[in-house]
């Protein structure tokens, strides 16, 4: 809501909203890629032109003109790649339930209605005075890796020192890892079962990277405050985000978390996507106040 401290903070940090609108997207390519995850390339010029990394689309799971009402609702998906020049965006998703299974049957050439781009982006990576930007650690878990692809490309373009840390249960579930590598940022990989990269949790990689940063030191910050060891952007399952929240707090590192909640509308009218404010009573709303929140803003693990 206007006047909220969260909104003011978000605007200051360049966590922007974009003018969304309904758009009929053409499916340019659609393929199963890993263990149960799919990559979907959409020609959606408005969204491609207006979107910032961290934002999402609400995507129909039945092709445009389909007569059925089931599954009923659009589904939210974070943008993986954003290509204003070709008018294309990609999303990467896991066939998890009825909605995404229906989506996975939509062939290339079909049209899908979407709303986009929605929500608040990651903070502007270029918002720091030159030389004063902390190192940026991107943390992605499983199907939370894809939004890090757009994020990595954006941060690199802004000249940031970026390291991506990604993990999943096993190699096949490292969604969009190739795309992440293609951005040129260094990537550290781990899996629960050791089938790719280190056998570790991605939060252990994060703790390690922060420890390294603390001893190695971040860029010298002008002024009295101690420079943060790093800035963290994270997306992944909620237990991972809770761990990141804790690790970041302990390390004194500013962290931005991309959060999921069940959504009906995706654009701020239904109030389904409430997430408790960390301080004080009441709720923020993931679709308009997020999905990217500063770690201190929200109380995770409320069961939603």
């Amino acid at each position, binding site marked *: *809501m*206007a006047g909220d401290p969260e909104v003011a903070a978000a605007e200051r940090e360049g966590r922007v909203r974009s*003018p969304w*609108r*309904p758009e009929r997207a053409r499916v340019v390519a659609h393929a199963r890629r890993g263990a149960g995850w799919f990559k979907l390339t959409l020609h959606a010029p408005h969204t491609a032109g207006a979107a910032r990394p961290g934002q999402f689309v609400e995507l*129909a799971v039945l092709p445009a003109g389909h007569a059925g*009402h*089931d*599954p*009923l*609702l*659009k589904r939210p998906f974070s943008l993986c790649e954003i290509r204003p020049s070709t008018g294309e965006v990609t999303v990467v998703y896991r066939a998890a339930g*009825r*909605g995404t299974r229906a989506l996975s049957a939509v062939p290339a050439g079909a049209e899908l*209605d979407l*709303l986009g781009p929605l929500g608040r982006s990651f903070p502007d990576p270029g918002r720091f005075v030159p030389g004063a930007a902390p190192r940026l650690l991107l943390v992605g878990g499983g199907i939370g890796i894809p939004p890090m692809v757009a994020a990595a490309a954006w941060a690199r373009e802004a000249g940031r020192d970026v390291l991506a840390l990604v993990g999943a249960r096993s190699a096949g579930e490292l969604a969009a890892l190739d795309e992440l590598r293609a951005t040129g940022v260094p990537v550290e990989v781990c899996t629960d079962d050791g089938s790719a990269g280190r056998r570790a949790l991605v939060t252990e990689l994060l703790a390690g990277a922060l420890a390294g940063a603390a001893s190695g030191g971040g860029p010298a910050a002008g002024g009295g405050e101690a420079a943060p060891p790093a800035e963290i952007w994270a997306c992944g399952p909620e237990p991972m985000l809770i761990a990141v929240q804790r690790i970041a707090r302990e390390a004194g590192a500013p962290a931005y978390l991309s959060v999921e909640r*069940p*959504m*009906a*509308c*995706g*654009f*701020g*009218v*239904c*109030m*389904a*996507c*409430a997430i*408790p404010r960390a301080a004080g*009573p*009441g*709720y923020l709303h993931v679709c308009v106040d997020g999905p990217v929140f500063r770690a201190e803003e929200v109380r995770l693990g*409320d*069961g*939603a």
Partner: protein
Amino acid sequence: MTEPDLSVDVGGLRCRNPVWVASGCFHYGREFAHLFPLSELGAVVTKGTAPEPWPGNPGVRMAETPAGMLNAIGLENPGVEHYLAADAPWLRRQGATVVVNIVGRTVEEYVRVAERLTPEVADAVELNISCPNVKEGGLAFGTSLRETHRVTAAVRQATKLPLFVKLSPNVTSVVDFAKAAEDAGADGVSLINTLLGMAIDVRRRRPVLTNVFGGLSGPAVKPVALRMVWQVAGAVKIPVVGIGGIATATDALEFLLAGATAVQVGTALFRNPLAPLEILDGIRAYMRQNGFARVTDLVGAARTAETAAENLPRIVEG
């Protein structure tokens, strides 16, 4: 053929057309204003508004079901003072026809909201009686005939604006509730609110909604809503506003033909924010194709002598 006349008078509320948007599915309209002028809608029905801000329910508030959805938002709303300060002036600037949906936990709370709604800030009031009546042990006002009459009569005293009572479908005889509202001075009834339902997460072996129960809406409920509108339109003299699963022009026409003077589009907005405009286009096309000059001529046009209650076979289901 000349442009069809879509205007309707609904219990004293004059509307450009019969296509409204439903409470809780349009918030206070700001999120739609960049897509189309709100003045193109028959009316905007606001989110249910209480005397004070309500935070809403904790946990999971939404679950999709076959051709429908469950919500247990818990009437999160910023309260009537916020409405007066921020939303009402803005809505007026948009030129929207505004129906304020009001909620309360006691008759006094409803009255407090209604008293704040002058003609400057609202064109009509819609009484949401699905709220739990804390003084009567938490059962909804809308499932007790006595409480329905009582709260309607009290709000009737508190406002001169056109007053619609929004009926719950979770009752044996919706007609009796419509009559109670009419009797207590309502200018119209809107129906239906959501059907009480639930879903279970078999993986976690617990209800999907933290609140266990939620309100079912969307195309799944349309046959029930249409039946109730048909029944009520045949039983009361005040106009009926049809709600429930309306997603296309055909759906809206079904409700008009059943006897609704206007309709509200709710859940369909989530899937397609432009649905009301597409529905309006479809109604216009239907009127042209079928030679209807005034939309009011469609109202109740499917009701004939053969379909009157007394001429029907008795065994309905099975």
